[in-house]
């Protein structure tokens, strides 16, 4: 498990960007719990952490693409689904659950695409 932040680091009902070894993730604190997804929208790379969070979904701030935070599924549009990550809240802190691949070292998986936010 990787500690991401303290619960109070993210305002209720908002998202924040967090980098894990330089790789950005969007982290969300919702009324339905904590969620993490890829950082940018598959549509045109909008910063999802700046989106409007409601119930268990996020709306991208750039073009209002709507996604389910638990499954990553697009809601009402044709975009690709988001990558989602498993989180755990424990003792006032939020952890990324990273042991789903068992004990194997983290192979630099091609499944993990982390596009840089706001490339300049």
């Amino acid at each position, binding site marked *: 498990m990787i500690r*991401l932040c303290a619960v109070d*680091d993210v305002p209720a009902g908002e998202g924040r960007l967090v980098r894990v070894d330089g790789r950005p993730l969007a982290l969300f604190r919702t009324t339905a719990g904590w969620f993490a997804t890829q950082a940018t929208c598959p549509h045109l790379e909008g910063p999802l952490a*700046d989106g409007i969070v409601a119930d268990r979904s996020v709306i991208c701030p750039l073009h209002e693409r709507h996604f389910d935070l638990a499954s990553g599924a697009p809601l009402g549009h044709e975009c690709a689904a988001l990558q989602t990550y498993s989180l755990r809240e424990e003792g006032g802190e939020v952890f990324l659950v*990273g042991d789903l691949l068992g004990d194997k070292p983290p192979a630099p998986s091609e499944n993990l695409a982390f596009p840089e936010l706001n490339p300049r």
Partner: protein
Amino acid sequence: MRIPGIVVVGGGIAAQSLCESVRELDAEVPLTMVCGEPRLPYDRVRLSELLASGEGPETLALRPPEWYADRGIETLVGRRATALDPERRRLDLGDESFEYERLVLATGSDPLLPPVPGLELAGVLPFRGPEDCEEIRAAVDSGAARVAVIGGGLLGLEAAYGIAAQGCAVTVVHLMDRLMERQLDPAAAALLRPVMEDLGVEVLLERQTECILGGERAEGLRFADGQEIEADLVVVSIGIRPQISLAVEAGLEVGRGIQVDDEMRTSAPSAWAVGECAEHRGMVYGLVAPIHEQATVAATSLLDRCERPYEGSLQWAKLKVMGVDLVSIGSPQGAQEAVAADAAAPAYRKLVVAEGRAAGAIMLGDTRGSEDLLGAIAGGEEVTDPVARLAAALEATVADLPDSAQICNCNGVCKGEIVAAVGEGGCGTAREVMARTRAGTGCGSCKGAVVELVQIATGGAVEEPSYLCPCRAQTREQLAAVIRERGFDAVSQVAGACGTGRECGQCKPALAYLVSEVNANRHREERGARFINDRVHANIQNDGTFSVVPRMYGGVTTPDELRRIADAAERYDVRMVKVTGGQRIDLLGVRKEDLPAIWRDIGMPSGHAYAKAVRTVKTCVGKDFCRFGLGESIALGVALEREWEGVYTPAKVKSGVSGCPRNCAEATVKDIGVVAVEGGWQIRVGGAAGATVREADVFETVETPEQVIRVATVLLQYYRENADYKERLYDFVPRIGLDEIRRAVLDPERAAALLERFRIAKAAVADPWLERDEPYHPRQFGDLDEVSGAAAPALAPVGPPPDGELP
């Protein structure tokens, strides 16, 4: 001596309904209405709204004054009929006498008062008219904290709720063993009690008030069992007493009310009676739907064309307490009953069957299918299996209802009329249908059904602007009323209490605006409900960076400001510095985490270029410099911008002030534009020069800059209070109509109230860029700290792979 045709004595819903019915049948017959109260008819059914809103009764007016003038209805307002001589067909209004051909008594009722000592004390009030609402509010404002309401019927509960909504401790004292005993059975009443208590209304049952305690002012109540309670204010609402004194003195036959036959004729020649003053087959009706039915029959009879006599009405009532859905139809109890109850919800649904026919229903908490059951009970539908019939009502949608089914019970509008308004009437939206048929304009509880019918009738093709969001099937007005009456000050409260009770990302920003507007900016800010622009007070760009536009009132700046802007642009590596169409300087490509620092360095207030707010007042140089200038446009533009700065609006507002009709500030295509003309200033509204191009309508021409500021500010506040979220002025103005807006904005009393509310809202506004020093949250502008995953075994996605295919 004047000789009108029909004279209606009374100025309430009954009188109004009668006039409407007469005019539908005959546009010519002379018609005069004598209103005893100092105002035209208003919707007394919604009286409790005045308690909560504090607005004047004119907001409940059934029709505007022009309506009467346009239809040749003479209105004598604030005039009381003093004597009646039915033999000579003469009516006295004080010194003046009328001869009439036909007379209708629609004198309504007075509050019924219990025979107890202490009624004369200060602080003891009935709940009957707008004056009572004002007095109750005044008492609460001056410190009345404990209020007793005598009477636990429909009106008593509505009054209690309206008072509790203002933060008082309210106790309802009821003589009977259950609330609303005429409309509810014991089981439903038992469920209603905790619902009322949750709203801050304590309930005392089986208490007979023996006297009102106190020397000069009411101090409490004593009951027959000796118990006493304290109260600074006592509101009496135990029922009505038909107002029949004029009829009694004229020798008409009366019982409890003025006795009428099946054509609503009294015992006197050429005299009819309708409404709460009339007694038909031993019944006096105090509900609105029967009044409309009586008025319809009386109108046909007055004009000698009565074909369907009046045979009595089905009693039907809806409790108008926000958040409590309660409908009672016909008999609350009977020989055969089917009941479905969920005490936890709570929800209670019951169908009463008598002699094999639907005879009554109660629906508490879940009123689905109430129109269906109302139709069944009114039509005496045969019911062999009450349990199945009750369940079937759950499934009934408005599409299944027959054309004859009444949708709006306040105004007696059937489904067929609504469908016809779309088909033959050519109405395309629910708003138009409501304006034409008046459906949904009474208590408003049927608006949802009207919208649904219009959608079906239009094939659902029309985008329906009436709902604030499809997730809650509630209009902006309804949600605003909920916020007002329940005293909500945060979006999460509204989201939790309305519709599905869940959050919806589509409408959160709209609710955030509504909550702030209703609370005059004294709401609890929940930033998660705001769009990112309003969380960080800058405009998000396509690469996730932000633009920064400082406030430059009227487009005027100084060398010093420009220097600071230039320095900041370099220091923060701003990608582009650009002059905007609204005469501002835009710094593009600022990183979110740099926002507080760049604001500090620039040292100018927010220009609100990111917000739904007043953005810019563009000006030309005007009389100060221009050889054609007629007015000082810069000074006026700056003053307007200062007046409006920081106030949020339903959609962005762009403004402009031109110093002469050459119009270099393009004021004729602004949301609100001002143009100097010979001798004054022309105020325009509803212009656009974007995707839509629209020339602004001329709203009013005034003489001085002070008048411009006043009128334009009142106009802005009217827009703030009445427009849908994201509805620009160029859409709002044609939808509401320029005349309607003028009526509100140019009326001195309404204008003063609007201006006062604007000032209250404005007083709570601060420069959002000051959050650079006092952020809403420590990480308002920043990402989280970077973490290292090196120590962790693996980082694995549990969602779909990046190709986006869901397993």
